[in-house]
């Protein structure tokens, strides 16, 4: 079995411990639900590892053309870093995984309509 670290772009190996939790999620709602299911310790560990690398991560990702054709290592890195859109709300805003007063396992679909 291939080590998961092999899948991330070179130089971002230290983010491998977060692939299992975030690497396969495709939508904002999946990330929101995952955020609610993790402990603050796990969310904080992700935050502490990824936040200092944000600049480097996007410098790397944006050295590729924007669109669906990212190479798989970069696509994986992008999925992992998009988790920060949710984790930051838990760590920087609420100090807890969930939104106060929200129902358990709260799900909210966010979509881009075909016609704007």
């Amino acid at each position, binding site marked *: 079995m291939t080590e998961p670290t092999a899948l991330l772009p070179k130089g971002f190996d230290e983010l491998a411990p977060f692939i299992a939790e975030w690497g396969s999620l495709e939508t*904002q709602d999946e*990330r*929101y639900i995952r955020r609610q299911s993790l402990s603050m310790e796990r969310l904080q560990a992700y*935050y502490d590892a990824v*936040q200092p690398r*944000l*600049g480097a991560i*996007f410098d790397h*990702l*944006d050295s*590729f053309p*924007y669109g669906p054709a990212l190479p798989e290592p970069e696509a994986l890195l*992008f999925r992992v*870093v*998009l988790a*920060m*859109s*949710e984790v*930051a*709300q838990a*760590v*920087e*805003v*609420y*100090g807890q995984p969930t*939104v*106060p*007063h*929200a*129902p358990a396992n*709260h799900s*909210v*679909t*966010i*979509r*881009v*309509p*075909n*016609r*704007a």
Partner: protein
Amino acid sequence: MNKELSDWNKYWGHAWKPVPDVERIDAADYTSPEVFEREKDRIFRKAWLMVARQSEVAEPGDFIKIEAPTLDTEVVIVRGKDGVIRSFYNACPHRGVALVRQCEGRTGLFTCPYHAWSFSTDGKLKGLPGAEDFPHVDKSTTGLTPIHTGVWNDYIFINFAETPKQTLAEYMGEFGEYFDDMPFGEYTRAVEIIQDLPTNWKNFNDAFNEGYHVQVLHPKSLPMVPTRINPLNHMYDPIYLAPHSSATIQSNTDWVPTGKVMLFVYASTGVSFIHVDGPEEQAAKPRLFTTARGINRIGLPNYSTSTMNFFPLSQFQILADRYMWLRYWPLSPDKTRFIVRMYFGAPPRSHLEEFAEAFQLASTRDVFTEDVSMTRLQQQGMKSGGVKEVVLGENEHMIRFTTQMIRDYMNAED
């Protein structure tokens, strides 16, 4: 600190007196099936309803199919060859089939999937197979049933009345004139959240028309709004142009963001979701909406957002990086389809911009989640029978105003 800002207190809403004297509302108005049926007939079948944006049917032949779920009705909105936007009930005059099945498209002809009756984009019957068997059908007077349709600014409105009491221009009135230079069309990227929620539709109007709750309900998510001199977040400069209304909201320029990811997003994209800059910085980077005449006419130095209520079911919230179009379609006394459509300036052009948008969307969803949670708990309490009426403060004047508009519609002569 901003000592001179207290000069603006005179623009707080309760200093204004055209607010109707609505101190209490019967809890039954939020729970009763009879009231709900009357609201459907008296309000939703009579008022003009903001339902779509012109850009959704930009070219001749472009159509969209939308729902008016309050009235169990699908509506087809189509731009004709002549450029005119029309709306029709999605119902074939032959035997009633909801003939348009796509949510959007471009066509010159709508064809019913049952017997292939076909209709041009102006709704007229163009063809029917075996016409000789329908000698009693006059093609020139048969077609899709039209719904009154009008356009204000970039927005399409429909009216289900057979003969609306007012044209759309009359309905929009001075409010429409005041905001007719708002550049909605410049915002081309739409992102949408749709939720069916167990609460009465009026709870949404109420939730988004007072600032009183912000410090209590959103202490962590909206610290950039209430200020030391306005901790209860009175809304400024309410504009009441019946049945619509608008108000202005401040930002807390004492607030200093500390979240490193939030700072990263703001720094790398140059924009936050509300104006957190002081007046000099705001002046140095004017944004599209701040040039419109209806925005911040009082010159509030720490202007952040504006709200605009289009009676009965729509609200705009004008933010620094986007505007949000809220709709609350009643489904039953206890259920509402809550739609938040956000229009950003442009789609993301880089991975960084996509990340920044995702961050803003998560943050916005969380704030709405706090609001929505209260509307759900309100319904729970009202249904329990434990309160016979709810009480409104003078600072909840915008709720009072819309409640009076609702009463006027409910009690109007036919």
